[in-house]
């Protein structure tokens, strides 16, 4: 008996008022696999992630997560299946401080969330929260409200919140855009290492081909709403047609 893949998308279609944003997209992510998505702006990468997380509903096609069909489910229900997501534009709470974001995400993943007598700053999650802060080098900003922190740190906080949920599948939309190129490789090294150590399956959208080549098991190339190529980084990135379309 073979376990169902982490994600299966079959023949997805979606258009926005006449613009075909997604055209017959089919993609499978195996359990534990790290898949990169590349493609120009407007190719439909974020739209694909939006469909996989229930924010948008495909007009046609099927999406299964660990064998469970998720078309029509709300983002919350999909999150409960173990799917976490970080956004291209960080979705964080501007008035709140950095560390509380992680405390909240960590509490959301545990039983006892609704207990009004259990403080947000609970000892059970304190260790994990500190580890995440250190992991993303956010410890110096821990007590600052997020509206004042740099864009790169906001992105990392968004990713850290996704990771705090301890997901089975994580979808990262340009996780390191806005992070300085000096920090990028080190950060991705640790992030991918942590994902692999936990057996988390991952999709990440990325524009930096060095990052893709180093960290992805497979690469999917998006061109105008459709998948143009899927394969190993060596094959795909050296393909002259891919170079022409994407680079």
């Amino acid at each position, binding site marked *: 008996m073979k376990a169902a893949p982490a994600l299966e998308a079959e023949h997805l279609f979606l258009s926005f008022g006449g613009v075909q944003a997604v055209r017959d997209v089919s993609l499978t992510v195996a359990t534990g696999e790290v898949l990169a998505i590349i493609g120009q702006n407007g190719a439909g990468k974020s739209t694909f992630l939006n469909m996989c*997380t229930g*924010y948008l509903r495909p007009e046609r096609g099927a999406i299964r997560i660990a064998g469970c069909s998720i078309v029509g489910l*709300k*983002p*919350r229900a999909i*999150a*409960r299946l173990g799917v*976490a*997501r970080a956004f291209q534009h960080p*979705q*964080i*709470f*501007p*008035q*709140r401080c950095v560390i*509380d974001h992680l*405390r*909240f*995400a960590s*509490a*959301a*993943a545990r039983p006892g*969330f*609704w*207990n*009004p*007598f*259990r*403080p*947000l*700053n609970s000892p059970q999650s304190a*260790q994990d929260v*500190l*580890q995440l*802060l*250190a*992991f993303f080098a956010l*410890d*110096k900003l*821990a*007590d600052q409200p997020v509206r004042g922190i740099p864009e790169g740190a906001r992105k990392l906080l968004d990713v850290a*919140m996704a990771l705090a*949920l301890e997901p089975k599948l994580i979808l990262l939309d340009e996780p390191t855009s806005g992070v300085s190129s000096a920090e990028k490789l080190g950060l991705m090294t640790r992030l991918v*290492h*942590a994902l*692999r*150590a936990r057996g988390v399956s991952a999709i990440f959208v990325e524009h930096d081909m060095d990052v893709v080549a180093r960290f992805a098991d497979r690469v999917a190339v998006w061109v105008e709403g459709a998948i143009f190529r899927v394969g190993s980084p060596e094959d795909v990135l050296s393909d002259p047609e891919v170079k022409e379309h994407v680079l």
Partner: protein
Amino acid sequence: MAAEGSPTEAESHHEHSSMRNALAETASPRQAPMRATGKLRVSALVTILAFCAALPFISPPDTFEFTIVLAVGLAGLGVALLLEAGLISFGHALFYGMGGYTVAALAPVFPRFGILLLLFGGGVGAIVAAIAGLFIVRYRGVFFAMLNLAISMVAYSVLLKSYAISGGSDGMVVQVQGLVGQALGPGAFGRALFYVCLGSVIVLGVLLQCYRRSPAGWGLGAIEDREIRIEYLGVSANRLLLQAYVISGFLGGFGGAVAASAVGHVAPDDFFWTTSTVLVVVAVLGGRGVVGPFLGAALYELLSIAAARYLSNSWEILLGAVILLVIRFAREGFAGLPDTWRAASLQWRRQ
């Protein structure tokens, strides 16, 4: 697998302990003033509470007014709680009225157990909130405000029409004679009610503070910021709101029950939209947090007494002027004045 796992653990453990050291270094100087203001706050609170406890001795004839301030403050606290999610309710008179009518209906059964009646009043407020909330918490902004208003006005007209049960526009007499089993004379009852109410305010305030510091209480405030992110963390924003709505219904019902016990009479006006407006004014005047609405209620009561004495026909002018002043100079309400002043003086010095 194991070979791969162990270096990670070692690495993260190392990171973690160095992280803790780093935090310890930065935390101590930063937290010291925080702890000092925390202590200042606690001692300010204790002083205020001691002053409140002394009020019936300082001015015995006003004990009734003091009790009403606490009752309205409790109900206003319910409105203020929802304000934290960025939502304003123009229908909290529903819970306030329900609490009062519950006491009126049950007083003949437990005439000397006022404490029980107050709890029933709060409980009925919570139950009504849980039922109405199932529907209301799906809405935001103007729709939320108006739906609250609509439901409270429906309750108001049903009450007016059902004369046999509610006494129609005459209302009902509330005959509570004691609080814990003993019948009391009017003066002693008024004083006892005040202290029971003050004790309830303290207990409910502490409980509410626990809730506000819990993940769900934090999430309530995050609804205003970015609801979709909450959903993406697997948490239902509507359920967060429902929990707060039920708590706020309890506070409204409890406040209404106290007021009904003190006044000795309930009337459909308790359900009328003007009562809801008073609660909103109290919440806005006082500001967010647990103490604010009580300051707001005290200010409101003072204003109405002053107006009755000096400005008999233009009470609205006075109230309007004060609301304008608060919105212009004390955005965070009265409880937020120290913070507002500090921010303003900082800005002043920079300029």
